[in-house]
Every structure is written in C-alpha cells, then in structure tokens.
C-alpha cells in the first residue's frame, strides 16, 4: 500500500503528509514535480504549501508541472487523489474539481483550530468516520474560501460531493463556525466518483494528542482501508462511492 506525495517548488507540507501516511501504516514517498510517469502507487496526495510562491494565483502554475499529466492519467484510471490545502487549489486549477478557492473572508492568512462535520462516511477518505462525526482540524491558509456558481453548488449538494463542512461542537452550522467564508460552509469536496477529494484543513497536522488533536488519523486510516479494500474487494466492504447519477 504505497502513497505518492506530489510536491512542487514552494510546497512545504509534503513531509508532513508522508509522516501521516506512515503513522497509519501506509508506505509513502515524495514525488518531485518534474517526474512524468507514476507507477506503483495506490493513491496520490498533492501536498500543501505555496507551489511556485502562489505567484499568479494559488496552484495556477503548478498545474503545468510535468507530473500533472501523469496525475490526470492516474485519476482517469480510477486512482485515488487527495489534494490538501494548496493541493486542493491545484485540483481546482486543473479542473479536476469544480469551483475555486478565494481569499478568506477578512482578507488575512488564518491559522487556527476548527471543527468540521463528516457529511458522508462512504468515501475513501472518510470510511473510518461515523456519519455526522465532528472532527477537530487545523487550518493555515489565505485562500481557502470555497466558491462556485449556484448551479455548480446545487449539483455538488445533490450529488453528495460535499464531503465535509465547517461546524460547531454539536455539528451545527453557523457563520461563526465558518473560518474563511466558504460557500455552504464547505471544507472538502470530491468529484462525482468520490475518488478525487480536495480539502482546505490539514488532517496531517492533527495526528497526535500532544499536538492538538488526533482526528486527522480518521482520514488517513480511511485512505488506508480504502486502498486495502480496492486490493481485495471482499475483505473490506467500504470502498469507493458508487458512481452518482
């Protein structure tokens, strides 16, 4: 079970993602953006950071990196791709996920703990969570304010592509629990298949009780179990979302 963590010049969370994968028993290694082939990986993570210094627009230059054609092929072949923070921004720039990440409401970089609610626990990234489970996460971004046109948002909701939402301690939604102004309190969305997911908070930074929270483990354990299930479909029942109609 091997995870590749794609990083670019300016990425800075690739080692954290490798560490988080290893902490749940996954093999993981970094993949430099100049590589053009990807073989032997069961999942890919696009790491957070400031690819190309966020010049032009977050993720706008990274999408042209040589590795991205291979990432697209990997996804088209049914592979699991998780974009965290800047990785989410890259996925939207690629068009692999709809919408865009705007500057935070308040127009400041924000690093803080927050809560988010698991909207569906049948995704490869949430299968270890209870339905509606509230996870304590950490975020650190300037552009994490998810936005899409009303039709797209309606479609995301209808298809169940909103995987996680900002919330309060009881899972309740309110403006005061939305730290960046995201539309519909969106923290994470997936493609219709559920195999490609982007999220703004950093699950790889909440893996240890001494460092604030362990809730990030639910996401990485989900990924691990999803990979296991794909390798022996009988062994684990939860795998990949059924294709939405």
């Amino acid at each position, binding site marked *: 079970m091997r995870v590749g963590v794609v990083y670019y010049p300016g990425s800075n969370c690739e080692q954290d993602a490798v560490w988080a994968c290893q902490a749940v028993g996954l093999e993981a290694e970094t993949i430099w953006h100049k590589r053009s082939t990807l073989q032997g990986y069961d999942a890919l993570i696009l790491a957070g950071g400031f690819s190309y210094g966020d010049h032009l627009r977050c993720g706008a230059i990274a999408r042209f990196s040589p590795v991205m054609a291979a990432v697209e092929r990997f996804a088209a072949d049914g592979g699991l791709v998780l974009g965290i923070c800047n990785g989410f921004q890259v996925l939207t720039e690629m068009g692999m996920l709809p919408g865009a990440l705007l500057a935070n409401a308040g127009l400041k970089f924000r690093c803080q703990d927050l*809560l988010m609610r698991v909207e569906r626990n049948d995704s490869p990234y949430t299968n270890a969570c209870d339905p509606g489970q509230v996870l304590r996460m950490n975020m650190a971004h300037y552009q994490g304010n998810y936005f899409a046109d009303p039709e797209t948002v309606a479609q995301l909701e209808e298809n169940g592509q909103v995987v996680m939402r900002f919330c309060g301690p009881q899972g309740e939604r309110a403006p005061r*629990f939305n730290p960046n102004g995201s539309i519909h309190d969106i923290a994470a969305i997936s493609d219709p298949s559920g195999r490609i997911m982007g999220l703004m908070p950093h699950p790889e930074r909440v893996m240890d009780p001494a460092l604030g929270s362990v809730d990030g483990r639910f996401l990485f354990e989900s990924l691990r179990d999803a990979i296991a299930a794909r390798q022996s479909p009988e062994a684990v029942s939860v795998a990949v979302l059924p294709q939405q109609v």
Partner: protein
Amino acid sequence: MPEAVTILTDELVGEAAALQHGMTAEEFSLLCGILGRQPTVTELGMVSVMWSEHCSYKSSLVHLRTLPTEGPAVLQGPGENAGAVDLGNGLAGVFKVESHNHPSYIEPYQGAATGVGGILRDIFTMGARPLALLDSLRFGPLERSKNRFLLDGVVGGIAGYGNCMGIPTVGGEIYFDSSYDRNPLVNVMCFGVAPAGRIVKARADGPGNPVIYAGAKTGRDGIYGVSLLASATFDAQAQEKRPAVQVGDPFTEKSLMEACLELVEQDLLVGMQDMGGAGLTCATSEMASNSGTGIQIEVAKVPRRVSNLTPYEVMLSESQERMMLVCTPENLEAVMAIFGKWDLDAEVIGQVTDDGMVRVLDHGVMVAEVPARALAQSGPCYRRSLQEPQLPPTLRARDLVCEVPAEAVLAALLADHSIASKRWVFQQYDQTVRFNTVQRPGGEAAVIWLKEAGTDAGVALSIDGNPWFTDLYAETGAKLAVAEACRNVACTGARPLGITNCLNFGNPEIESCMGQFAAAIEGMSQACRALNVPVTGGNVSFYNETEESPILPTVVIGALGKIERASESVRSGFAHAGDAILMLGAAAATDEISPSRATPTEDTGLGGSAYVRHFHPDRTGAPPTIDLELEARLQNLLVEAAAEGLLRSAKDCSEGGLAVALVEACVALADGDRTDANQASSGEASAGAEPIEGLLGATIELPEVRAQERLARLFGETPSRVIVSLAHEQVERLEALAASKHVPVRPLGTVTSEPQLVIAAGDSTWLRADLGDLYRTWAGALSAAMEQA
C-alpha cells in the same frame, strides 16, 4: 589564476567621498594606510559598508567580548552566522535573533519580510534546517493610525515570508510604548537543527577552489542597507530612504534553502555564506578572512536583474535570497546539478586565492583589491566614552496612593495592548506546519518536538525583553530579561542551554546611550553566569532614534532549552478544577514577612510595572531587584519538578504581576480550545455572544498586608515567581523537592470550576471578578484596536 591587472588610478577617490559614505576622516586615513594609497570608488564602497556599525560592531565589540560565551553545551559561539548548542541525540540546535528595525519603519511589509528571510538564511547557511521562528516586536501606541499601519504591515510581512517558507512562527512578544512611535523594532529569532558534526562554516579554504554565486539575481535594491539604514539615525525625511529597503521573495528563498540543505546533506561544500547585509562584499571578505585566504571574483559573471550595474553597485547590492558557496573542483558538477534541479541561477564567479586579498575584476579589469582581513576583521574599533546610568530610588507601595478598585486596575491592565491576547497577530502566522509544534504561541515558551530526529525530545524557545526595566536601570533590566527568558523556558520543564540576544539602542556616540549599553552588557553577563547559560550569538542595533528621540533601550533575549519528552511539557494554564495552586520563588519568601513590621519589604516590584505606568504615570523608580542565585535554584526546581511529572501548569508572574498571571492561567485552556471563526475577538462580535466554554476560576488566599500595599501585592512585578498548579496528592512531594533546592514555596489556593477569580486575605476580599468578563477584555483588546477605522 588570471594575471594581475593594475588599478585604474583615475578612479581613486578622496576624503570628501569617504565622508559622504558615512566614514570619518580618521577612518579614511586608516584605510589609506592599509592600502598604501587612496581607494577606488568600488573599494571605498566596500570598506564603508564593512566598517559600518552594523557590520563591524565597532562601538559594541569591546563590551560584547566580556559576555560569557562558553559552556559544555556550546558547539558554536559568536562569530559565525548563528550560535549552536548540543541537543544530544547527535543534534546541534542552531539559533539566533536579528533586528530589521529601520527597514520596517520605512516599508513595514518588506522590511519585516526580509528580516525573516535574513535570519532564516543565517540558520540554513550553517547547514541547519530551520524549524521555528519567533518575533519580538515594539511599536508606538495603537491609538495612532500610523502605528496600526506599521503593526499590520510588519505582521503581514512576517506572515507572508515565514508562511511561504513553511516554517512555523511559534512565539514572540509585542510591547507598545510611545518611544517606538517613529522607530518600531522588529527582532526575529530562528531555531534550526543540524547533525552535530556537520555544521557548515563561512569558509573559503583551498586556493583554486571555485567560488559560486547562487540564488536570486542581483539588482540595485538595498544598496547601503547596512550603512544608510542600519547605522544612522533617522530624520523627518526618513521615507526618502525607501530605495535602500530590500524586497523579499520567499519562493526563491524556499528553493534556495532546499538546494543548500541538499548540498550539505551530500557533503559537497567547503563553506557557505549568505549575501545579506553588505552583500557580495561581506560574503567574499568574511569567507576569505575566516580561512586566511583570498578571493578573486569577476563581477561580469554575477547574474543580474538589470543590465547596467556598475561594479560598485554589484558589490554593495543587498538583493535578497543569494548565497555564496565554495566547493572543490571535483564537486562542482554535482553542486551545479542540485541548483539546476531547483531551477536556481548558479554561476562560478571566481576562485579562492592564497594571498589574503579580496580582488574584484570587471571584464578583466581590476577595480578593487583590499585585504580581506581589513574588510572583515581589522576595521576600526572604538571604546566610546560613556556616562554611567544612575539607579533611581525604589518605589514604595505606601507612597503610591490609589483609590481605584482592584477589579478596575485588573481590567485596565488586561486591556493594555502589551498584556492583552496577541491572537490577532499569531493567527496570521502558520504555527503548525512541519507538525512539530507542541506548544503554540501564547504560553510561557513554545515547545517544538524534534520529530525528524526520531526522538521524543524537544526544545523550548522564548523571546523576552521588558523595555521599561532597561530604561529605568539598564543593568538590572538586562538581568531581568535574561532571567525571564530562561524562566519561561524552565516553566515548560526544559533546561535552558543558551541564549541569543538582540540589543536595540540609540546613538552610541551619545554618552548616556553608550552608558546604558555597557550597563546592559554587564547585567547580561552577571545573569548568564549565575544561571549558567552562555551567549552563543546575537545582534546589536544602534541608532534607533528619529529626530533625536531615542527608543527605550531594548534588550531582547532569546532562550533555548531542551526537554526530554516534548509531549509532556508543562503548559501555562490551569488544567483541572480542584488542583492546588502554589507560588514558587521570590514572592513566597517576601510575603512571609510579617505585616506588623515597619517596612516589610521596600521593593514590591513596582518600578517599571504596568500598574505604575497606568495609574502613577508621573512616578518612576528602580526596576525590581533580582536575586540571581534564587532565580537559578527556582529554574532548576521547575525542570526537576516537571521531570517528575508533578506539575499540571507553571506560569511566570511578569507584566501585570500576580493578578494578571492568575487570569491568564484561568483562561488558557478555554482559549486554546476555541474553534470558532472569531478567535481574535472577544466573542461578542460574533452572533449571539456565546459564552466561552471551559473557563476555570481560582480562589486565592494571601497574607494580609496594610490596605495601601494590596495593589502592590496584586500587580507588582517582583521577578523569580512562578505560579504552579498540581494535584493535591503531589503537593507534599513538591514542597519537599522545593525545600531540598532551597526555593521558598507557599500555597496560594485552588483551581475552581466556577469561572470566578477571588483573591482574599483573612476576612478581607481584595478582588472578586468574573472570568468571562476578564477573558473578553483580554481577548478582544488588540483586535478591537486593529479593526477600528
């Protein structure tokens, strides 16, 4: 080796040019003596920046040499880009603090950003991976819109650079005083780790070895940064110096850092030196001088952003994100390949020579030839005349009549921007990247887990410097700064191993100012010796004055300590209702003195205290005295008590005294648990004014004193006092441990689940306040000030 070329004599310049470059006539004649002739314009430029106060430490060196710099843990003392201490596990902890004050006044965002970039380069130039940043900032009061503009810009610049670099900002402090109105301070500290046996030095050994320039291209920015900005006082036309401020590009620096660390990892280098202040001139002369070699470079080979730079401009440019490296010819290809991987410019611009000269050629024509030692080491050095500061009399509680109720005093101090929560600032910094941050900003010290080294161990980092104490009496103030920085580290359970300092003063040519500087060095020396923490490096920033009004003399101390199990570090906030609260250290001793005595203790820590600044602004007195021997015993006790797992919290009493420390200890847990979107404000701004969950309270019993001394007991800032909380069953053990260390200890009270702070003595209640109200005051003051129009 290229053949020698004669200098073009028509470029020689005289004394008038030297004076324009900020040199004195004596310095010019010293230079002519060294050269045996007048200098060329390029030489004059090079020498003037290297002999500037900023680069040469010419006014401070005679004093700095008296600081204790050696100890068993010291791997690298002052003289390199940063100091280093042994962290065990084969690791060196590399750390330093540096100022970027003047640039940040002229252009706050870029000034602060390049300050971060500069200190980061100092750390990775040593071959260490930077793991954490801390900032010590000083501004004028936020009532003035200019100061809000400066704070907003400086914080934005620190965030913009540090966040992009992927290095967490984990701590710091901010004080406000009108003396910083036109001269804010931006001191940045960085900590990194390197394998203990593989610290890289700024050396150019091996004549014939190639000299490589790597990183950003050279432009015209930052010329005279060290002389025009850092070594001169400001007047009303300060804004005209904006072109001397550098512009930062953290993206290039991130790539440069990764490339340099790969080079070190593969052991490909002879030496490395960043090009920051004084640029190419500083890098060439220091590397050659350190190795007793020379360096010859061809400026035409330097990668440039603009085409028409003169050799003078190339040598003086302070364009950021540039590095100079020396390797053997065999390793050159491998070095270039790594820079290629990271898409960075890298050029061989010269080679190491054996004759001790820095030689600069422009298309083969020699434009400068100066002994490296003269540039880097044997410049002017002054023992400036000084006026010794006078110790003011002690402020006595009975002389300060104050009719304000204790609750109102407490509320006023909690709303003081120097004391109030700094979350509005910290949440703009990435505090958690690299997944190492055990204790984030807001506690006594930041705690970083050395995860990459495969160990449970960690370091605690603190940066401190109360400027009002140094202003009142510099020697005591400096002692207090060292003691507090180390005490904060010890509160987490970490043993202090060393300190770095940033000394921000006014004009050294003014006797009173130089007297304060010398006294501060003396105080720092005494404290370091008593606490057994050597100084491993630092920075001096003089000329911090605009139109002849100097800043408060500001001694900023960065302390580093080691803790065996980072995950078990002690936090500053109360953790459990029902726990016992005890006072360790000085106050426990003085409080025991019977109130019936005529003068129980004259010094209750009022001089320079926040209470006196607010309620008796016309009164000044000596800063609190400190018993350094007791301080050392107290810190040792804290480390051992933490190692035994006795403590649930430890909180230093500093600004605002006992009462403010108690409030901060009661709210810390709830404040850290917040997950709402308006954490920087009181919570009232958000819809519904939700109550704050999880606030704790405390019931405190103090010995009775005369009525007019109560406020002094509550708000005096006597040092060497730490409030600890612990389970009741551990109290006996802690008392025994304290007794064995000869540290006074006294019960204070109990942590309560009801969010009330009650401080009483016998039958009289001194203070009773709702912690929800106190928390909202403390949590919301800074954001309310910054969010006003």
